[in-house]
């Protein structure tokens, strides 16, 4: 495929941008969306953009959604473009999600888990019926929601609730059902996908980082292929948790660790089929891991399933698409895939002219042969 530079159209391009603005502002008696409104009232869209943009910057993620008029791929692209203009100052030590300040925590493996299950905010048990009353929600009704919530919590013994919760996997590990932690793996350097290209084979840390900022729909689609039978993971969710992870860095003067802020993350650990070589090695459950910025449960679960399927592909060679690291990791990035897709809208006049010339030549030759 070839490309050709074009010129002209500046006026129309500028006008096109104004049309986008016109459509954004055309609401009669409307007011511009505040970034804070987007962050709260379009919470899950906002968190999806945070996650796919790869930068935990709530305010700019809201701005990107506003600018992109709700297109999550465009918004993530804008956020990703922003990050490429800013210097990297440092990286954290390896943080442990046991320190998460939990707001939701469930297990589909056990009814009773240490610390208990907490539904938090989710729609798992909601009816998917339109709530018509929201069509005419008044400001007063809207504001009473928070007030009512806090009034209903005044009698709760909140100080009895712990700050952090133990991991379900730790209990399974103590029972000898999953393999002990491997010190060699713990010592591996993390692969930085923002600085190094993916040249296969890649380490697992590259796969985790790629999926962590992958596009939710793409991850779900490939994980779903595995769930439906193009694979053999059969996952059980040991634990799915949502919460806020304190980000720790050394104090500039004392050098001791301090909290510079917190990020909301979703984390999922799945237990898959057990594995052993049938000889001397003890069989253990195998595991998959998913984590991402924001509250994105479908993404974290899909990632955990794909992590496990990619482990199989890396160890034994892929037998289906979801086990193939190259197939999965090169097709789950929303910005890459959207960019490739939308580039087809750019002028391809010369290449298509060439296609037409070749077709006409071939047709001419065939007409000559027939006559």
């Amino acid at each position, binding site marked *: 495929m070839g490309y050709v530079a074009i010129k002209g159209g500046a006026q129309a391009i500028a006008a096109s941008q104004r049309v986008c603005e016109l459509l954004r502002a055309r609401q009669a008696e409307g007011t511009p969306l505040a970034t804070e409104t987007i962050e709260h009232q379009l919470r899950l869209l906002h968190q999806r953009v945070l996650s796919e943009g790869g930068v935990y910057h709530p305010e700019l993620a809201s701005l990107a959604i506003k600018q992109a008029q709700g297109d999550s791929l465009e918004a993530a692209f804008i956020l990703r473009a922003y990050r490429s203009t800013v210097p990297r100052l440092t990286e954290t030590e390896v943080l*442990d999600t046991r320190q998460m300040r939990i*707001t939701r925590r469930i297990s589909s493996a056990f009814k009773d888990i240490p610390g208990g299950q*907490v539904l938090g905010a989710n729609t798992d048990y909601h009816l998917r019926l339109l709530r018509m009353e929201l069509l005419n929600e008044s400001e007063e009704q809207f504001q009473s929601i928070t007030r009512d919530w806090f009034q*209903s919590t005044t009698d709760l013994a909140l100080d009895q609730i712990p700050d952090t919760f133990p991991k379900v996997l730790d209990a399974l590990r103590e029972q000898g059902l999953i393999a002990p932690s491997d010190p060699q793996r713990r010592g591996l350097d993390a692969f930085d996908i923002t600085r190094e290209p993916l040249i296969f084979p890649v380490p697992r*840390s590259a796969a985790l980082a790629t999926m*962590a900022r992958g596009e939710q729909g793409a991850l779900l689609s490939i994980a779903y292929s595995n769930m439906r039978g193009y694979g053999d993971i059969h996952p059980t969710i040991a634990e799915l948790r949502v919460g806020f992870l304190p980000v720790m860095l050394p104090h*500039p003067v004392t050098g001791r660790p*301090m909290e510079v802020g917190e990020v909301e993350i979703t984390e999922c650990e799945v237990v898959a089929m057990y594995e052993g070589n049938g000889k001397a090695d003890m069989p253990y459950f195998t595991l998959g891991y998913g984590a991402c910025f924001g509250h994105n449960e479908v993404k974290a679960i899909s990632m955990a399933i794909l992590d496990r399927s990619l482990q199989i592909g890396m160890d034994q060679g892929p037998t289906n698409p979801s086990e193939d690291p190259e197939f999965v990791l090169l097709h789950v990035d929303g910005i890459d895939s959207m960019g490739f897709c939308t580039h087809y809208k750019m002028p391809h006049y010369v290449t298509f002219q060439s296609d037409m010339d070749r077709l006409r030549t071939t047709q001419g030759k065939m007409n000559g042969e027939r006559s």
Partner: protein
Amino acid sequence: MNEVDRECWLSALTRVPAQDLKTLVETFPSDWIIRPTAVPQVGLGMLKLRDSTMGEAFYLGEFPLSQCRVSVTTAEGLMAEGGALVMDDSAERVEYLALCDAVLAGRLPGWERVLDLVEMGVQLQLETELERKSILAQTRVDFSLLDADAGSDND
């Protein structure tokens, strides 16, 4: 004063309204000599996480980060050094925070007002914690097995 560790001051101060912080800093005497002891920077930090299944480290993504380190000398010759590192991209705010850190660490004039703001931040932090705990308390679930409870759903 030192009930709140120095490493917790900044976390508390980032919770208070930006305008309150600015107003406080503007009350510091203008004849103080404030010098950066490291180049103030605004950029990104990379968050490294340990996967909890196999213990491998990987990069989850980036976050905004600003850092500043200053030395403060008062007209009376008192000196203190302060620093700030926060998940934010406002150069002005991180400078204010570094200054507050220095004032409180060196007990420079006005340190009590900084401490008041720290305590306000701690209180706001506590309110956030309580809000999250109220979510946990209200939505804690104890699923019963059908055969154990004959189909009742009164949890």
